[in-house]
């Protein structure tokens, strides 16, 4: 990603506030790949993620006047992306895929080697989670929302948020172990 060195993110922000299209494009080019990584965690696939990203940037440029400089500008954009993803989830609230309980068995006692797993692998696992689990997992673990906030935002109970989180964790552990096993097998073979 090549960016003109002469602009700081503050310059870009000011330019965007003035509605400068060139500055908007530069801000996009500087932040889009990070933001797409955020959107990807919330979406089922790349197409949905890019849709969320697009709507998120529209909102960023529309609401940039309301950014008061509290907190990092990138953090502000990131929050808009997350909100955009939540909005998209609520809009096409698909029937919650309830994962049968026997799918997530008690994890074996050995730890995982996370270093072997790349971000793309983990992203793939998150995207495979059912929509509700994925939302709670992302919001709680990566974005740091409280269960109360998640409950209010998604319109579920706090208890549901907590149970969905532990279900999501269990499923991910299960999947990682499977992956590790494959990796181990391929290494051994």
């Amino acid at each position, binding site marked *: *990603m090549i960016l003109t060195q002469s602009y700081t993110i503050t310059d870009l922000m000011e330019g965007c506030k003035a509605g400068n299209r060139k500055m908007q*494009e530069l801000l*996009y080019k500087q932040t889009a*790949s990070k933001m*797409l*990584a955020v959107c990807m965690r919330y979406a089922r696939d790349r197409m949905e993620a890019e849709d969320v990203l*697009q709507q998120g940037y529209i909102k960023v440029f529309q609401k940039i006047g309301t950014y008061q400089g509290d907190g990092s500008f990138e953090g502000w954009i990131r929050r808009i992306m997350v909100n955009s993803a939540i909005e998209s989830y609520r809009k096409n609230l698909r029937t919650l895929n309830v994962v049968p309980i026997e799918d997530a068995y008690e994890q074996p006692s050995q730890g995982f080697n996370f270093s072997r797993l790349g971000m793309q692998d983990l992203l793939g696992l998150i995207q495979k989670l059912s929509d509700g689990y994925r939302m709670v997992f992302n919001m709680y*673990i990566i974005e740091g929302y409280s269960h109360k906030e998640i409950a209010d935002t998604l319109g579920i109970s706090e208890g549901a948020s907590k149970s969905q989180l532990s279900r999501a964790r269990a499923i*991910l*552990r299960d999947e990682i172990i499977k992956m590790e096993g494959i990796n181990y097998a391929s290494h051994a073979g």
Partner: protein
Amino acid sequence: MHHMQDKEFDQLFKDKFEDAQIEPSANLWANIEAELAPKRKRAFPVYWMAAAVALITLTAALLVFNKEEGGQLQGRTADVIKPAVSTEEKGTDTLVDQVKPIAQDKAPVEEGVLVSTSPAKSSLVAEDKKAAQAPEQKSLKNNLGGMQPNQVIAHLNTKEPIVKESAAELPKAKVDPADVIVMASADVPVVTGDAIINENDVADKRGIRNMGDLINFVVEKVDKREDKLIRFDTDDDNSSLIGINIGMIKFSKKKHK
């Protein structure tokens, strides 16, 4: 037995996604830019254009048909007046205007004469009255209908006898009784005209209770013909269309007598 704690597990995920970057598709900025661009291409949205076209068409149609109607009326009233005017030679409006004040001035002075002349006059007036009413009825039979045509004819007729009188008796200036009586006689057709109008306009007297009434009212104001551009039957609460008259295309449920 090492059991990874939830916190540890969560932190590992967090770290992995901390600085994650995924390059978006190349065309995504173009999409965003397109959505950001102000949509000024259409200054007037389609439905506004449609509304404007509809309004212009309706206005044009009303103007054309009203004009047509007006032209006809003038033509016929002119015909009606013509014989009276031709027999009396001078039938211009300016003459009438000049005569009138003179006649009024003389009125008090000629009081005595008024009585003596009145029998003679009354026959004359009677004739005038016939003359005045004949074309009136003719025009009614001609089914010009509507309230304005009637009124127009009535006014023209009131002038007609005055012209006669003035031509005949201008030197003596004894016009006034005739004038007065003729005015009275001229009022008669006006009254009958009103009666006819009232019959037609019963609906308006009831006030506007529904959409049909409202449309009827508006059309009444705009379209003075007997067969309105559009007319609704509003006797029951769900207004039903009973008449349409767009020039050549006419539709009417009501049987006209």
